[in-house]
């Protein structure tokens, strides 16, 4: 199988992103790598039960000012768009918790008075869940900035595998950082006014990235038909409908994978993967046509 990156996102929380991502990775077996990019509340490991082998601490650089070298010129403060370093009177104040670690202040300091310390963002753990390569990030409690940790998780993408990325809910920076660079985005939603509302926001945010996407409708037999209508209008392919099945719910409540507690869905997940492959190839040939 050709390597590719598939992100699973949703907009609304609790729609079944992790359920879909973990079962997709499981049916693809040794071809797959699962990366949990929901670093604030990673939970793929609960379903995948990986044996973790490595732990790596991830940090961002923060400025440390040597005041005996500083001439109070203020260039550091001018370049910092997050106000994490500022010259006030004869002092240089730093706000390390606001620093995004770009290194601009130390680069521009004419006196070379700024060195880089570090702030821990969290850790990355890797291992194996059966034949599936497993990676997740865990954001340090109290840390507000997740995108650099998400980038560190994505740096672990194995270019020889089918990488499945489980995104956080929402439609802001952490989601965009997760799905950027993917070949395909699966949006998981439920057929309720809430699912539809947040799906619209996610579609609008993600459409700027020009990545092909499709919807999986979870608990598809509850609620209404509005998500179906929206997908038709927007020409978004509906990849699968997974009903509100007691067998799945019971398995989930025990922390078991969907395709383990309800193995009749293995075929459905292989079918989802086949559709995604076709859609990616289709969008590439469309692009070729558009360019020729």
């Amino acid at each position, binding site marked *: 199988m050709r390597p590719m990156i598939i992100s699973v996102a949703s907009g609304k929380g609790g729609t079944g992103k992790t359920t879909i991502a973990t079962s997709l990775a499981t049916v693809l077996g040794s071809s797959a790598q699962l990366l949990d990019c929901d670093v604030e509340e990673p939970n793929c490991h609960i379903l995948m039960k990986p044996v973790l082998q490595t732990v790596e601490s991830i940090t961002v650089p923060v400025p440390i000012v040597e005041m005996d070298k500083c001439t109070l010129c203020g260039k550091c*403060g001018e370049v910092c*768009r*997050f*106000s*994490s370093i*500022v010259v*006030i*009177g004869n*002092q240089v*104040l730093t*706000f390390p918790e*606001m620093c995004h670690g770009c290194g601009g202040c130390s680069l521009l300091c004419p006196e070379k008075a700024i060195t880089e310390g570090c702030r821990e963002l969290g850790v990355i753990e890797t291992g194996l869940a059966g034949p599936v390569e497993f990676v997740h990030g865990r954001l340090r409690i109290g840390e507000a900035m997740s995108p650099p940790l998400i980038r560190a998780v994505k740096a672990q993408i194995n270019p020889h595998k089918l990488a499945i990325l489980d995104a956080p809910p929402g439609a802001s920076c952490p989601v965009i950082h997760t799905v950027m660079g993917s070949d395909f985005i699966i949006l998981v939603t439920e057929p309720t006014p809430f699912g539809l509302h947040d799906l619209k926001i996610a579609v609008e945010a993600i459409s700027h990235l020009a990545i092909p996407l499709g919807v999986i409708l979870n608990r598809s037999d509850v609620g209404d038909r509005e998500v179906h209508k929206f997908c038709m209008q927007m020409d978004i392919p509906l990849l699968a409908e997974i009903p509100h099945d007691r067998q799945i719910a019971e398995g989930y409540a025990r922390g078991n994978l969907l395709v383990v507690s309800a193995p009749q869905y293995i075929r459905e997940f292989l079918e989802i993967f086949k559709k995604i492959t076709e859609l990616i190839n289709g969008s590439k040939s469309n692009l070729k046509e558009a360019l020729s």
Partner: protein
Amino acid sequence: MKIAVTSMGKEIDSQVDPRFGRAQYIVILDQSGTVLEAVDNSQNLNAMRGAGIQAAKFLADRKVDVLMTGHCGPNAFTTLKAAGIKVVIGQSGTVKEAFDRLNRNEVAFTDKPNVEGHW
């Protein structure tokens, strides 16, 4: 002495804006109560982060001595303190009323922020 009051407008009769970093305007007065300038703070108002720090830096550059506002967060307060600017919180009503309270010695300077960041 220069006094800065966060404000919803440019006039001395404008209402005090309770926010500091994201105030709409900052009115700077001299000790007689004459408006020296009214600064449009809209750039800071839309800042992603660090609005309080930037506003404090601005007041430091303008050599303001006293800030009168509604609320002040921790990063803004640290920066104001470093600049030696005294802070009066809990202000409301008009800019003039706030200034008069200072003039009549009816206010106290705070020694700590009164809200969390991003309140």
